[in-house]
């Protein structure tokens, strides 16, 4: 489930790219330097990054830290709320197919766990009809009409962010129940990892 590498400045990126393309492992790179520049440089060796105004200096890195304005969290990603399993940037025109997490500050005690699920594990547990439903029914991801499961280059991919789906469109009770069932299925198949800051 986890493939480990050790960071050094000459680390070859191709095996990591291949691991990520296979899609059946999480890549863990230990001893990664704790700067935006190093992270951005490394990301560019793996693929094309998505720049956004919300990122640090409008570049490739976004700080996931608790931040409030006017008494409210500045985004879901800047909160300490627990929220369901999701894929990132579900409402973007181009959805990233890879996301990197870098721990720059250790979480206290039991907090800060990252929770993952492999789509293949989910698909093995549901019927063909259910897969058909997931690949055919369109949902509204803030203006983007997309299925939850898609087939890209003969591989299944998933786009799922319940918060975006529920907040920006009116779902009926049956649809909400369907998503809750999905959430429970995901929860049964999770594995957790806690990233550590280098000392």
């Amino acid at each position, binding site marked *: 489930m986890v493939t480990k590498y050790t960071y050094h400045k000459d680390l070859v990126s191709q095996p990591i790219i291949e691991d990520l393309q296979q899609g059946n492992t999480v890549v863990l790179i230990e001893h990664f330097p704790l700067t935006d520049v190093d992270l951005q440089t490394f990301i560019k060796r793996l693929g094309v990054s998505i720049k956004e105004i*919300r990122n640090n200096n409008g570049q490739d890195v976004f700080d996931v830290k608790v931040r409030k304005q006017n008494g409210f969290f500045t985004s879901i990603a800047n909160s300490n709320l627990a929220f*369901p399993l999701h894929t990132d940037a579900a409402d973007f025109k181009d959805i990233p197919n890879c996301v990197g997490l870098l721990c720059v500050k250790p979480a206290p005690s039991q907090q800060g766990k990252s929770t993952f699920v492999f789509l293949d594990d989910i698909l093995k547990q549901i019927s063909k009809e259910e897969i058909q439903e997931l690949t055919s029914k369109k949902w509204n991801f803030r203006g983007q009409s997309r299925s939850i499961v898609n087939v890209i280059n003969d591989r299944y991919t998933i786009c799922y962010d319940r918060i*975006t789906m529920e*907040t920006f469109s009116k779902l009926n009770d049956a649809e909400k129940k369907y998503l809750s069932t999905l959430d429970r299925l995901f929860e049964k198949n999770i594995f957790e990892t806690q990233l550590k800051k280098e000392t």
Partner: protein
Amino acid sequence: MNIEYYHWVGHEEYYAELNPEMSKIRPVKEVYNIDIDESLPIQELLSKLYDITNTAPYREVEWDGKVEKVASSCYFKNGTDIHDFRTIDDLEQRISDFPKHGANGELSLHISMTIAYGN
């Protein structure tokens, strides 16, 4: 003072493209003339912009029966490129401290109603 206000920035531009009716009501940018003392905190100007642009300081997000309020994110233009927007972190900072990179020397601002980044 004149404010060059952007309704759609970053990936929200695609949201506008997908919703042409929305784009008619809210073009990419508009210039507003706002009577305000520039020595005041930027928060005062943003309060006026919430009214003018019919946006809100927060949005309610929902999932699985839960509701949470998330603040709107406010940005200023920090360069000449369309994507040179930066977050306004300190709402107490004076209006006059912000650079004016509008087409005609206006202060360029954007309020995003996006609830999340990447979530």
